[in-house]
């Protein structure tokens, strides 16, 4: 339990709050304020994983999002598993349980290690492409083991116990990053009165100020952070979001922020007040007028031999662990650098009372302020030199420092092995250009700072860059840059900027960085010990050189061939070094090489946060009719029709679908059935030109439809193909009620509005949806008149209330419109009532209907009954390639209507009128009990060689209890002229079903039953 590497003082951790945690089965102790990585380092855990390809032991390298190795699996039980968590970004909490993602079966003795040792030959770059893609059929097998071996983490197999949330936000200025530039920018924007969001991925605001040795106004920088936050909190329109990573910069200045609300408290959100479990993570969907990008820079490591052995770290990370967490990740430090700023690590190390073995500075005569300070404190500085190679397997044991010539890329002295256990390296600083490039904007190379900075963003991003991401590094200028960026963003968003006094930073002489990325070795790159560029994906300098030699010259090809910048890394740590190596190998410059695409997300986002609360019962909206509770009470099973839940059938105990539907069908044909038809689309149409409008959108004629009557109509698109149908009733001279299909309701209303608003605005007509206002109860069957008569004051006499008319009156005491229309072929009444009062009407009907065996039926029985009558269902018999004539519904086409209505020209095209089109017919199977599978293809000659000539397909097919044989509707080529001929259905299961082409009307062909 001893924290061997914990310094006795210093850091922002709370030593009075020890926390216990488990890593790879071993219990350790850390402190509140630690990240998991800091706590692991404090406990002297050197190896945190095994590498992707070579299975080499790996340790913690960084302190932030760029960490390539400490990618861990979090969670103490199945339901709380979280893969791909970077230990450097996970706050420590009491009881945390984590394990290495890589390393199977364990990190210290890895079975794959053996493979890894010979891996140079076995797994060259392009390994996947060269080895495993052929034979392709074996890929799933390989993939299973590779994934496990490579350790990509695993998703939990149990339900997540937490809730997640999406929230939409709007702001004038979104400041990304709360380091010195971001804090200053937020302050400037807030003071202008703008709505400001300040988001930062870390546990606390401050960024680089949290571990800097520099002062502001002569005081520790942390004091300035407190001042700024205190002021920001006074603005009601400022939202501070720590633990919130801006992961994506999308079109129209829409950005996504992944906030981890409780991840620092435990593996699931702890119960809050009233036993409520708070939201664990929120995805903020931000529409920002302006963005200030203050995301800082990532330090680059130097690429030298064995630079992956645990104990190799970024110089800045060493400083972070020492100053922020009070952890010394070693005892004897060697620093390899090409710049001044990295000397802070040496000074921080000395301040902590630790030993600096040497500094290898690639520059010939460095004289910067911190260099001189280190020199004056007795640090040995080897100039014109670099660490060229490291020794050790699970921990650095020694480093060889040798003189190098960066121009000729050669080692110029044998050098000297120095014993040490920590090699910090710094190869310069790369602005974090990811977000700036998410919309495709290319970063721009700046030779003066040896780095890419954000480009112009193609004009797609309304943003201002500030601080290190902008190539501004000195603390005083960073803060000034931030304040002016915040002011500019606020001004651009329409606010008036307010001047502010900025804190005073130290002036310090700093010299330029030397261009060194890949440190030369005595041996050629291919023969030298491995020099890693991308630690997460095990990409070496030799691998990149090999890729270029094999002809991969485009940066995107090199990336894909070597896997450089794949995975969670996304080009954070190794990108620039890789580009530099490829460029040198190809003899071109880094800007000529260019960068790869940067894509969201910047760091991994959990699926929970993406789904938010749109899961489980809220996955999609469900629509219910006013009678739903009655259906449930009466045992209905439901079918999804669009978003509607419609009763499918009402099984009695012991009944399956088939027997329930047979019973329901027979009840309708012999007595009376009841269907909830409320889901049908209903459109109220008013205006003096309503009738003319109907003439133009329906295929048939409406001029002569009298008040009180109803008519079936077909609607076509311009191409003459059927797209909806339904009955429309004339309620008054200027007043119609149109019904549409359930699924077509919104589509048809839009269609009417589209034509009215764009083509015929001169027609005086209005449309309003009344789908939800009316509940529709359909009584169908020979006893429906008798039943309805018991509960209505409407005269139901067959002459005074004939077929295809409507009447107004009371049904069960409620005002109603009753329509005599039929989708079953039986005597039917559709009772429309204001939906609020439908339940009472249904209950009274059900009570009165007992003596008639009133049988509720669902969509399945409705489908069978209408198929027996040959009534089409749009979308089942039609598929946007079917004309009214194809459906044998030419009677529904007004060929003499004066206005060229929608579809008329389309259906008169040559192709729409040719012989041999598929036409709707009935099919009667030779074996009456065989039911053709819906969708089955039909052929005329089953003995022809394959591939057979298709003759059509089955659109609807059921067993008919009323008729005692199966009925099917089909679209068959030239079918209407082939009545009596045979077709054959070769089924997938090997059956060959023979059927006769017959009329599509199987039941009551004269229509006597519905018109009595």
């Amino acid at each position, binding site marked *: 339990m001893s924290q061997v590497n914990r310094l006795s003082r210093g850091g922002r951790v709370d030593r009075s709050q020890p926390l216990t945690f488990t890593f790879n089965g071993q219990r350790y102790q850390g402190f509140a304020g630690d990240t998991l990585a800091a706590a692991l380092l404090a406990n002297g855990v050197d190896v945190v994983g095994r590498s992707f390809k070579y299975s080499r032991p790996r340790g913690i390298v960084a302190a932030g999002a760029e960490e390539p190795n400490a990618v861990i699996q979090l969670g103490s039980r199945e339901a709380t598993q979280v893969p791909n968590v970077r230990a450097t970004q996970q706050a420590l909490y009491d009881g945390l349980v984590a394990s290495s993602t890589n390393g199977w079966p364990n990190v210290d003795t890895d079975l794959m290690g053996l493979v890894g040792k010979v891996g140079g030959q076995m797994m060259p770059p392009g390994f996947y492409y060269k080895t495993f893609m052929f034979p392709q059929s074996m890929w799933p097998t390989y993939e299973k083991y590779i994934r496990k071996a490579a350790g990509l983490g695993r998703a939990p197999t149990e339900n997540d116990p937490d809730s997640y949330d999406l929230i939409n936000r709007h702001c004038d200025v979104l400041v990304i990053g709360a380091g010195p530039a971001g804090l200053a920018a937020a302050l400037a924007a807030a003071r202008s009165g703008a709505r400001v969001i300040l988001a930062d991925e870390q546990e606390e605001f401050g960024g680089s100020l949290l571990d800097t040795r520099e002062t502001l106004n002569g005081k520790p920088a942390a004091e300035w952070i407190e001042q700024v936050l205190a002021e920001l909190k006074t603005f009601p329109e400022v939202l501070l979001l720590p633990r919130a990573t801006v992961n994506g910069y999308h079109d129209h200045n829409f950005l996504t922020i992944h906030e981890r609300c409780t991840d620092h408290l435990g593996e699931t959100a702890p119960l809050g007040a009233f036993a409520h479990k708070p939201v664990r993570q929120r995805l903020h969907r931000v529409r920002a007028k302006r963005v200030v990008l203050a995301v800082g820079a990532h330090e680059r490591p130097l690429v030298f031999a064995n630079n992956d052995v645990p104990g190799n770290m970024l110089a800045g990370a060493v400083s972070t662990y020492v100053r922020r967490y009070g952890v010394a990740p070693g005892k004897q430090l060697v620093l390899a650098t090409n710049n001044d700023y990295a000397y802070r690590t040496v000074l921080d190390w000395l301040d902590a009372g630790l030993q600096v073995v040497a500094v290898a500075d690639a520059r010939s005569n460095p004289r910067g302020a911190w260099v001189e300070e280190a020199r004056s404190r007795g640090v040995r500085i080897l100039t014109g030199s670099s660490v060229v190679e490291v020794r050790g397997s699970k921990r650095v044991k020694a480093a060889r420092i040798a003189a190098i010539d960066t121009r000729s890329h050669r080692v110029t002295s044998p050098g000297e092995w120095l014993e040490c256990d920590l090699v910090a390296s710094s190869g310069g600083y790369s602005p974090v250009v990811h977000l700036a490039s998410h919309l495709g904007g290319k970063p721009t190379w700046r030779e003066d700072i040896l780095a890419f900075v954000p480009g112009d963003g193609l004009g797609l991003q309304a943003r201002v860059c500030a601080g290190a991401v902008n190539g501004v590094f000195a603390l005083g200028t960073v803060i000034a840059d931030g304040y002016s960026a915040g002011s500019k963003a606020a001004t651009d968003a329409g606010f008036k900027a307010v001047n502010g006094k900025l804190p005073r930073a130290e002036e310090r002489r700093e010299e330029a960085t030397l261009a060194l990325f890949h440190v030369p070795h005595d041996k050629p790159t291919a023969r030298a010990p491995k020099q890693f560029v991308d630690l997460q994906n095990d990409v070496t300098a030799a691998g990149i050189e090999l890729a270029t030699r094999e002809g991969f010259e485009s940066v995107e090809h090199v990336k894909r061939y070597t896997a450089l910048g794949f995975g969670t890394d996304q080009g954070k740590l190794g990108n620039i070094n890789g580009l530099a190596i490829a460029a040198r190998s190809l003899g071109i410059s880094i800007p000529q090489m260019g960068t790869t695409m940067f894509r969201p997300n910047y760091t991994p986002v959990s699926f929970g946060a993406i789904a938010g*609360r749109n899961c489980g019962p809220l996955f999609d909206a469900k629509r219910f009719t006013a009678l739903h509770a009655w259906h449930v009470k009466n045992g209905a099973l439901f079918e999804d029709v669009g978003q509607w839940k419609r009763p499918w059938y009402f099984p009695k105990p012991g009944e399956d679908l088939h027997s329930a539907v047979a019973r329901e069908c027979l009840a309708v044909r012999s007595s009376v059935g009841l269907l909830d038809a409320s889901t049908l689309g209903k459109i109220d149409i008013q205006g003096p030109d309503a009738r003319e409008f109907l003439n133009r959108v329906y295929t048939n004629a409406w001029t002569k439809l009298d008040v009180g009557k109803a008519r079936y109509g077909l609607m076509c698109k311009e191409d003459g193909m059927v797209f909806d149908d339904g009955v429309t009733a004339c309620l008054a001279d*200027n007043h119609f009620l149109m019904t549409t299909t359930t699924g077509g309701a919104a589509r048809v209303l839009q269609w009417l509005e589209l034509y009215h608003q764009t083509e015929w605005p001169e027609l005086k007509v209005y449309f309003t949806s009344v789908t*939800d206002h009316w509940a529709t109860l359909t009584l169908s069957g020979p006893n429906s008149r008798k039943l309805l008569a018991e509960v209505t004051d409407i005269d139901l006499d067959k002459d005074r209330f004939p077929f295809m008319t409507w009447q107004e009156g009371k049904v069960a005491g*409620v*005002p109603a419109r009753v329509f005599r229309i039929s989708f079953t072929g039986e005597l039917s009444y559709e009772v429309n009532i204001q939906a609020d*009062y439908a339940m009472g009407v249904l209950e009274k009907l059900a009570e009165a209907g007992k003596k008639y065996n009133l049988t509720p039926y669902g969509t399945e029985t409705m489908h069978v009954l209408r198929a027996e009558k040959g009534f089409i269902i749009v979308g089942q018999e039609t598929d946007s390639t079917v004309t009214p004539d194809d459906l044998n519904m030419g009677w529904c086409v007004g060929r003499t209507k004066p206005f060229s209505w929608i579809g008329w020209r389309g259906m008169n095209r040559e192709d729409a009128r040719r012989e041999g089109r598929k036409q709707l017919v009935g099919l009667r199977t030779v074996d009456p009990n065989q039911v053709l599978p819906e969708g089955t293809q039909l052929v005329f000659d089953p003995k022809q060689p394959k591939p057979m000539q298709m003759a059509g397909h089955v659109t609807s097919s059921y067993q008919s209890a009323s008729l005692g044989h199966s009925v099917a509707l089909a679209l068959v080529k030239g079918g209407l002229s082939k009545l009596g001929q045979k077709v054959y259905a070769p089924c997938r299961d090997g059956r060959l079903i023979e059927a006769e082409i017959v009329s599509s009307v199987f039941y009551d062909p004269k229509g006597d039953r519905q018109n009595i």
Partner: protein
Amino acid sequence: MTAINVYNQRPADIAGQSPLHHAGFEQLIGKGRPNAGVRLRERKLLGHLTLRGDAKDPAFCGGVHQALGLELPVALGLVAKGETSLQWMGPDEWLLIVPRGEEYATELRLREALAGQHIQVVNVSGGQTILELKGDKVRDMLMKSTSYDVHPDNFPVGKAVGTVFAKSQLVIRHTAENTWELLVRRSFADYIWLWLQDACAEYGLAIEA
């Protein structure tokens, strides 16, 4: 009047069931956590009329004013007088909400005042309901549900917007400070109610009479 079929669709003597009848709000009153961040009340079974006409026609505007005593609101506007409110829904469309049972008389009054004009009045009372939300967390809940900016600078009292809400659509009406209304279609009401319970869980949700 014979050109349009108008009749009283609501029975005088029968209790109706609002779209959220099954939620049993009466039984939930007072059962939420104290000081809930969101307090909900269903303003149920009111008279809802869709009114369409030509806003540029002074005769139309005048007729509406004569019948209702309300000026036609302009885009995204909502005006109210007592229990009656009139809301802009589109360039030629308004929603008129009147106390329960007054929709038939109101329609007749409108039709009389607008006689001879090309208009549409449609009773849609059965097709929608209003959920009134009060409390200091209503805005946060709305932010979870809609991408429209509900900040008072953008969404002041007296504004009403038809917009996306969760995976559905509805109309959000800002009727007073910290008081909002959702105009919900009947068939989607259960989904919205489910959503509200879930989205309000962290703030506390109380049902009011």
